[in-house]
C-alpha cells in the first residue's frame, strides 16, 4: 500500500481491526425476552449492534469487545454475558 501524503487516510478503515478478539465474555441475546427498545444498540461504545430485517438486535462479534454494557442496560435482561470458549 502506498503511503498517503501527510498521514491522511480514507474514512472508516478501523474496520480492518477486528476487536472481537479482545473479548473474554460474550453477550448472548435472547430474542424471546427482547422488547426491541433499542437501548443496547444505543449504548454500545463500539456501535456493533445492528437491527436485522426480522427486527432482531444482534451484535457483530467481529467487533464486540464483550464489555457488558448492553447486558447491564437492557431493561428486559434479555442479554447475558457468558464466558467465551475459544
Amino acid at each position, binding site marked *: 500500500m502506498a*503511503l*498517503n*501524503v*501527510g*498521514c*491522511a*487516510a*480514507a*474514512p472508516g478503515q478501523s474496520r480492518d481491526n477486528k476487536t472481537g478478539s479482545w473479548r473474554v465474555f460474550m453477550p448472548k441475546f435472547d430474542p424471546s425476552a427482547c422488547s426491541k427498545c433499542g437501548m443496547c444498540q444505543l449504548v454500545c461504545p463500539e456501535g456493533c449492534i445492528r437491527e436485522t430485517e426480522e427486527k432482531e438486535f444482534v451484535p457483530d462479534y467481529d467487533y464486540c469487545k464483550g464489555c457488558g454494557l448492553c447486558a447491564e442496560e437492557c431493561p428486559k435482561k434479555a442479554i447475558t454475558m457468558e464466558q467465551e470458549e475459544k
Partner: protein
Amino acid sequence: MALEIMEGSIAVAQAVRRCRPQVISAYPITPQTHIVEALAEIVANGELAADYITVESEFSALSACEGAVAAGSRAYSATTSQGLALMFEVCFNMAGLRLPLVMTIANRALGAPLSIWNDQQDSISLRDSGWLQFYAEDNQEAVDLHYIGYRVAEDHRVLLPAMVCFDGFILSHTYEPVDMLSQEQVDAFLPPFVPKFMLDAKAPVSMGMYATPDYYLEFRYETDQAQKRAIDVIREVGCEFGEQFGRDYSALIESYRMEDAETAIVALGSICGTTKDAIDEMREEGRKVGLVRIRCFRPFPAEDLKAALAGVERVAVLDKNVVLGAGGSTARGAMALEVKDALYGESIPVLDYIIGLGGRDVRLEDIKKVVALCEQGEGDRFYGLRTEVL
C-alpha cells in the same frame, strides 16, 4: 515595468493581496506589524475578499491557517522572532500534514535578552521543521518570492509550507523601488490553490492521524523527499517567473563576481547588498573576492553550492545566527555547518563569522575585515565583539 517606491512591509502586503489568500491570520509583532496592519486595511477596504482572523496569539494564527488550508483555502500569515518561537509546534505539524502556506518572516533576534532588531536566529532555528525557507536580499525579491513561494508550496510534488524571510527593519521598514506586478500578471502566474486532499463532507478523509513505529520513519522520509523534489520545482517555477516578468529565480543560489575568486563569502539576506559593494571595492584593489548568496536555505542547495565554490581557496561564511554550543571551543552558525557539510571531502577551509546579531550594524569595512581575517586563516568566532564590555 513601473517602479514604485514603497516600504518593504507595504510592498509585501500588496504582493500578498495579489496572491488572493482567502484566510489571513496573524498577530502583531515588531518588525512584522506594518504588514499585517496593511493587510487589515486592504481587507477592510474590500480590496481583497479574505477573512482576516484576529487571533489572540501567533500560536492560534498559524493553527487557524492550518485549519483553513486543510479545508481547501489559500491562507497567509506573517510573524517574526518570539511569535515564530510560539508557533514552533504548529510549524512542525503543518509540514508533517503537508499543508502549503506562505508565511512572511521579518527576521528578528530571539530573546533573551529581548531584542527587536534584526538577525536570522528566528527562522534559522526552524530549519528542521520541514518548511521551505527563502531569504530575500532586497524588497523586490521579498515581493517576488511570495508569488513563487505559493507556486512551489502548493505544487503537488512538494506540498510544504514556506517561509519568505526578509530582514526586519533593514528591509521591512526601508523604502525601495519595487516593481509591483499587476493583479492580472499575478493571476496568470499563480492559479487558485488546488489541494491534493482536504476536509470535505463529500469525500471525507482523516488528516493528522498518528503513526506507529511501522510508519513514522517512512512519513519522515517522504517529507524529506518533498524537500528534495522542491529543488527542481523551484528551478522550474523560478525560470517561468523569469520568462514572464524578466526576473529569473531559477537558481537557488546567486554567484556574484565568483569568476577566478580566491576568497568566497557565503551569506544570506540583506547583508549580501553590503557585501556586494565591499566586493566591488576589493575587486578594484585587485583582490579576488566573490560572493555566493543563498536564496533558498531549505531545501539547501548543497550540490549547487559545491559547484559554485569549486576552485576557491577559502570560504568565509557570514552567519546572522549562532548555534549555541556547536563547534567545540570555536563558534558556529547554522549556515557554516551546512557549507562545511556541502564541501566535505574538499580541502577548502571554511571559516565562520557570527555577525550582526541583534541589530548590530554590518558595514562595508566589516566585510573587508572579515575577508582579511579569512585570508589569515582566522575565523569560527563572533565578529566585532566589543571586548571593552566583556
